[in-house]
């Protein structure tokens, strides 16, 4: 063990997306030494995929916007299951975080008076999303990356070493968090390039690893989204909550295979696109739920009139909330009325002239032209639901993002609570900034309070971690990890997907037991240097643990809410709203328990109309003196 590489830092940030970078910047600004450890090259994190923008109530386009309105929108979107304190902090701090980006060099699109332009988005009452065309995520990550470079230049001028305070470990994967006596002591990782191991000794670790998309077959996520942070946290003794809430976007590409899952923006429908099945029927009219009957058109004629005259007509059912549309598409395909590639048709070609389509939907036109060789001005797109985002995540303190494990912090998609049961578009990028900063700050404060009493990394921990990480090389004649992964994704897609029932989830849990053995017996060919097979074998463990947490939580929650739809419990229940479902590890699996939400602060409760609260809360929770 003598030649093992070791580093000591005040704070180790795992993940280099928006949240991780913002956390690292904050910890460095607080005077801490920081390591950024990321699985990919620096600047390639999944944040680059975000298109829409960053939600922040700056009021640049509509001055009526403020944090209270943003807070309300966020709580409604999450069906009131959100951590209200996080939603409050998020709404209050997002504008500052966006303005800060400009001081780092970001160039957002502008309003005529030179301020940051803001765009409309689903669920947001006013135009609110700061954006740069349709590449807002790229702008965010590049800006933060360049801020880190600028801090490194400052450090160089002071110390003669660019990396004296922030060091980036790109293409390094953490396999285990090291815990000593109930506190974070560090992390164990390997270099993808060489397969060599590295130990980080650090009293504080910030998880910013993103989501879990790769546990599902059809997903908009990249290979990195293997639930590493969720699994690392749980294995180290922290908890995750509400893992059942997964956002399936109704329109992902289904064909060609190479792009299956890639998003087709909601604007296609907003601009007039219609959904039809293999029989040519515009089926959404059959799927308007009773609660929405009043707001949605019942005939195609009326729906079509809405685009030009929204005052006197009801909107077409293609524009129902995402979960409704996703469910409808799912039902059509299951009933055998799907397209040859298992989706439905989304057509704008017969609805708008070609030049209008190219003008209004340039990126979609390009996406289909370049990736699918489909000209959407001439032919319909094939679309179907795709796994997009996990609302559940590591349970954190709303103010400093510390998990149940002292010294471990989490921010961004890997953390839970902020978005409740359903996330609004645009709220994820602002989430990264607000809570990334808070996690970095929290970690710095924690390190200060800890003083000299830093938990140590023992040789035993390191030896254990090494044995675990190399196990796959010692399996003789085991299974190919790629096959196991494909089967796991299929299982999750089929049995714990967009529509869930008890029997299927039970079956999923049974199968997951089988997967545990298969993952243990996954074997790897070749050596340790840049060996994707080995990397996948390690990631599989994380995906499996996360899958079990999702399946168990989903089985437990007997209601339908946001990103969790039960065929057998189709109604949203105020009683269930009072409960978070928390997951933790037990043995080689996951155990769950119910945990009550803290009641919303009175002044925040008063921001809502009591008639609205009635739909979500139990009578006992309503503001005093206003019981209906």
């Amino acid at each position, binding site marked *: 063990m003598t030649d093992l590489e070791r580093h000591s830092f005040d704070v180790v940030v795992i993940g280099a997306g928006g949240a991780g970078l913002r956390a690292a910047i904050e910890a460095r600004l607080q005077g801490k030494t920081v390591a950024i450890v990321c699985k990919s090259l620096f600047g390639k994190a999944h944040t680059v995929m975000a298109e829409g923008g960053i939600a922040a109530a700056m009021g640049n386009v509509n001055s009526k916007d403020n944090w209270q309105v943003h807070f309300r929108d966020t709580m409604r979107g999450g069906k009131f299951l959100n951590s209200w304190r996080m939603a409050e902090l998020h709404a209050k701090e997002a504008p500052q975080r966006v303005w800060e980006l400009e001081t780092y060099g970001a160039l957002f699109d502008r309003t005529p008076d030179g301020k940051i332009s803001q765009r409309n988005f689903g669920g947001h009452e006013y135009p609110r999303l700061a954006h740069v065309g349709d*590449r807002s995520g790229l702008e965010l990550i590049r800006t933060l990356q360049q801020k880190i470079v600028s801090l490194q230049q400052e450090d160089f001028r002071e110390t003669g070493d660019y990396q004296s305070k922030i060091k980036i470990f790109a293409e390094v994967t953490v396999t285990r968090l090291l815990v000593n006596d109930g506190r974070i002591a560090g992390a164990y990782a390997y270099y993808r390039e060489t397969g060599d191991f590295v130990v980080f000794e650090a009293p504080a670790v910030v998880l910013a690893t993103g989501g879990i998309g790769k546990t599902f077959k059809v997903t908009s996520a990249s290979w990195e989204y293997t639930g590493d942070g969720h699994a690392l946290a749980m294995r180290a003794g922290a908890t995750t909550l509400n893992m059942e809430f997964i956002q399936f976007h109704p329109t992902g590409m289904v064909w060609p295979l190479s792009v299956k899952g890639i998003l087709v923006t909601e604007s296609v429908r907003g601009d007039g696109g219609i959904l039809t099945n293999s029989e040519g029927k515009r089926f959404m009219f059959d799927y308007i739920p009773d609660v929405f009957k009043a707001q949605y058109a019942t005939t195609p004629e009326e729906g079509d009139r809405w685009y030009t005259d929204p005052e006197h007509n009801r909107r077409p059912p293609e524009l129902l909330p995402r979960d409704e549309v996703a469910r409808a598409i799912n039902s059509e395909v299951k009933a055998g009325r799907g397209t040859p590639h298992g989706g439905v048709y989304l057509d704008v070609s017969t609805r708008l002239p070609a030049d209008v389509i190219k003008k209004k939907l340039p990126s979609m036109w390009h996406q289909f032209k370049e990736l699918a060789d489909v000209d959407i001005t001439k032919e319909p797109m094939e679309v179907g639901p795709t796994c997009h985002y996990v609302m559940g995540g590591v349970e954190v303190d709303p103010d400093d993002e510390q998990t149940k494990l002292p010294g471990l912090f989490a921010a961004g998609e890997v953390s839970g609570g902020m978005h409740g049961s359903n996330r609004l578009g645009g709220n994820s990028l602002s989430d990264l900034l607000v809570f990334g900063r808070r996690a970095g700050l929290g970690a710095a404060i924690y390190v200060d309070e800890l003083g000299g009493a830093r938990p140590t990394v023992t040789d035993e921990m390191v030896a254990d971690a090494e044995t675990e990480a190399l196990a796959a090389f010692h399996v003789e004649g085991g299974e190919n990890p790629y096959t196991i992964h494909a089967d796991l994704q299929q299982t999750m897609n089929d049995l714990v997907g967009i529509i869930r029932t008890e029997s299927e989830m039970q079956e999923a849990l049974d199968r997951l037991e089988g997967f545990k053995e298969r993952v243990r017996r996954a074997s790897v060919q070749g050596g340790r240097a840049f060996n994707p097979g080995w990397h996948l074998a390690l990631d599989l463990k994380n995906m499996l643990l996360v899958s079990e947490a999702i399946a168990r939580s989903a089985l437990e929650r007997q209601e339908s809410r946001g990103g969790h739809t039960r065929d057998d419990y189709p109604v949203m229940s105020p009683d269930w709203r009072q409960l978070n479902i928390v997951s933790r590890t037990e043995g080689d699996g996951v155990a769950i328990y119910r945990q009550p939400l803290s009641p919303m602060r009175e002044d925040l409760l008063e921001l809502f109309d009591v008639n609205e609260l009635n739909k979500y809360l139990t009578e006992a929770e309503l503001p005093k003196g206003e019981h209906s």
Partner: protein
Amino acid sequence: MTYKAKFRVWRGDDESGDLQNYEVDVNEGEVVLDIVHRLQATQAPDLAVRWNCKAGKCGSCSAEVNGKPRLMCMTRMNTFTEDEVITITPMRTFPVIRDLVTDVSYNYTKARMVPAFAPPADLEPGDYRMAQVDVERSQEFRKCIECFMCNNVCHAVRDHEENKTTFSGPRFLMRIAELDMHPLDTVDRRKVAVDDHGLGYCNITKCCTEVCPEHIHITDNALIPLKERVADKRYDPIFSIASLFSRSKDTRTPAPETPKG
């Protein structure tokens, strides 16, 4: 629909390596990266390749397909004939790590040498005002996904290893142009563009523009305008003298020399 395609994939490391032959199934609508993944899943599980988003947005899967720098995720298989042998190699300007993965640290080192954005000291966050027409030029350059194919194809370093110390490549000259055109930047980077980043190496042969997957007009909109701005200051005696008496004087401070570290 499905056919067997012939591939030659470079396998090896920084010591040795060669092109190895594979026959792989290809289905309708697939891209080269799908085929590489199928190779991993069926024939070569340890085939090293970088990729992330698989949608042309992250710039990870840069390689050379039939000798041309390409994003593998954006290279559709139907651009080849069924009997064509398709050759995939790593980028040939950067040191190879293994198989299709190269060491692109050159780019990160150069990125660190570009003097950072420097806004006016007294401007508070939230008070930034910029006109859309003034940010559009820099916005085009900020579309860059850092696939590094422009730096890979640029002959100044591709064909001349020794120039890597003095030349930063199109990507980072474009970054300097981006900052030079930023409406609120207070630093004059024209001197460092030439002295520290080797703008003079560029002979505008435009391969950077040809390979850019984001279709950024690197040469016409970034490199040549930067050369012209440098000429204003450095090579044009009349303009230099005239600008001393101009009403709209350039008030920017020169960027500090890049520390060699």
